[in-house]
């Protein structure tokens, strides 16, 4: 049985950009361990020489000309923003 320790749980939460309170980490680690153990059944399968599946239907993706097909809708794009100013999305300071 695979176990995910507290440090791994903390790291995964950080990578996923989800704040998890320190007190909740043990339960999170426990639940993640259960799921990962479930996934490990896949180790029973012989996958030698098998290509990973990359497309669901065997068809080539369509190509189109690399041209502008849409645009000029700044108001619509910003209409759902939590904070928009002067035609831009506004966020907290990114660079000190």
């Amino acid at each position: 049985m695979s176990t995910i320790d507290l440090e791994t749980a903390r790291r995964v939460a950080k990578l996923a950009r989800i704040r998890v309170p320190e007190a909740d980490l043990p339960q999170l680690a426990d639940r993640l361990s259960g799921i990962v153990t479930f996934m490990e059944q896949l180790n029973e399968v012989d996958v030698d020489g098998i290509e990973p599946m990359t497309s669901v239907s065997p068809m080539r993706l369509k190509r189109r000309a690399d041209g502008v097909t849409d645009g000029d809708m700044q108001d619509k794009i910003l209409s759902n923003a939590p904070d928009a100013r002067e035609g831009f999305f506004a966020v907290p300071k990114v660079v000190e």
Partner: protein
Amino acid sequence: MKLNALTIAEARDALRKGDVTSVELTEACVTAIDAADALNAFVHKTTELALDRARAADTRIQAGNAPDMCGIPVGIKDLFCTEGVPSQAASNILKGFKPEYESTVSGRLRDAGAVMLGKLNMDEFAMGSSNETACYGDAVNPWKVDDRRLTPGGSSGGSAAAVAADLCLGATGTDTGGSIRQPAAFTGIVGIKPTYGRCSRWGVIAFASSLDQAGPMTRTVRDAAIMLGAMSGHDPKDSTSADLPVPDFEAALTGDIKGRKIGIPREYRMDGMPSEIEKLWADGAAMLRDAGAEIVDISLPHTKFALPAYYVIAPAEASSNLARYDGVRYGHRARLDAGDGITEMYEKTRAEGFGPEVQRRVMVGTYVLSAGFYDAYYNRARKVRALIKRDFDEVFAAGVEAILTPATPSAAFALGEMADADPVEMYLNDVFTVTVNLAGLPGIALPAGLNSAGLPLGLQLIGRPWGEADLLNTAQVLENAAGFVSKPQKWW
């Protein structure tokens, strides 16, 4: 008969004859919806919009040549972006989000004249099998046999409850691992997940892009054929949408399945499967044989690995798709403390906005895609997925035209019953349905009987890629033979 209880086919024909108007149908549904708040199926009602569209549909029908769905009142799963109408995938992170655009599938229905009654409850981001992860609270199954409130299944639980309770004539659902077929089975209705690429995913809030497909949920197979036809077709805005002609699905319902070879996969006979479901399955096979089909035993050897492969691939894709919810462009943004920078904004926003199951799946996906684990989990799962698809390819190459299985391992369970269970136990609900998503095939669930407690049980038919027309025809033969006519007793 109440107008809201008509099938789509009956309503279409009555509209053509002038026996009823779309406004009358719509008003009957609105009355039923307003009396069904206990089911918590409709979470955003669009009554004014519906009546406007119904009036427009009546004008169009009078002018002649209106499409089949014109004037038909339907519900739309909250996963579909609908212009100017809240669309939040049952998540607090999209609270207040009103798209400036319409998803291709709901847009096709709108353009065909269908009347949207409102948005339907679902599991948050379609992650769940019981509709208990929704920010709106649980949707409730109209079927009830004792004092317990039952789940309508998930993730399309609101769609299933609404159709089963006659709140609308049909509803859209989406299916990533069984989210149309499992709730259809739990509520005694019909639900089809078409071949991957049949319906455009554009404007459908993404969960796992290589698995997600939209489909109709209706009270009959004929209605599913009619509604699927209106939802299907190539869309340049979805690069995985197939540029193939859409057959006339309803015209394919000939009732003739003589000589068709239907496979019974031995790996779907699970240990501990309830005898009622075993019997239902055997009865279904006998009905198809009586109708002239040839029943053959088949093997899909990698079936038992479908669930673990799915629960690697779906969270991996979800963790990538859900990275867009960062509090910048739409939806919720956490209140920040003095000195908080952009990373704190992301972390607090996502912790507040995502519910526990979504957080868990995003983190599982992050884990399996992270350096050092990518090959061990994600790539291995994609290889197993290739083997699962090969199992189906080989069976179809041997002449099998459809596959019959149970739809779910049990009838509907009680809301709250799984609250303390391990997440993996909930995942087992998808055991008969996920293979179909992994292989990109069409699958349909239809009601075939009641269990000893009086709850509906469903069977699933799986078809060849792009073979929805044949699949619907076989399903209708089974529907007619099973003769399922039970309806939930109104308690709400």
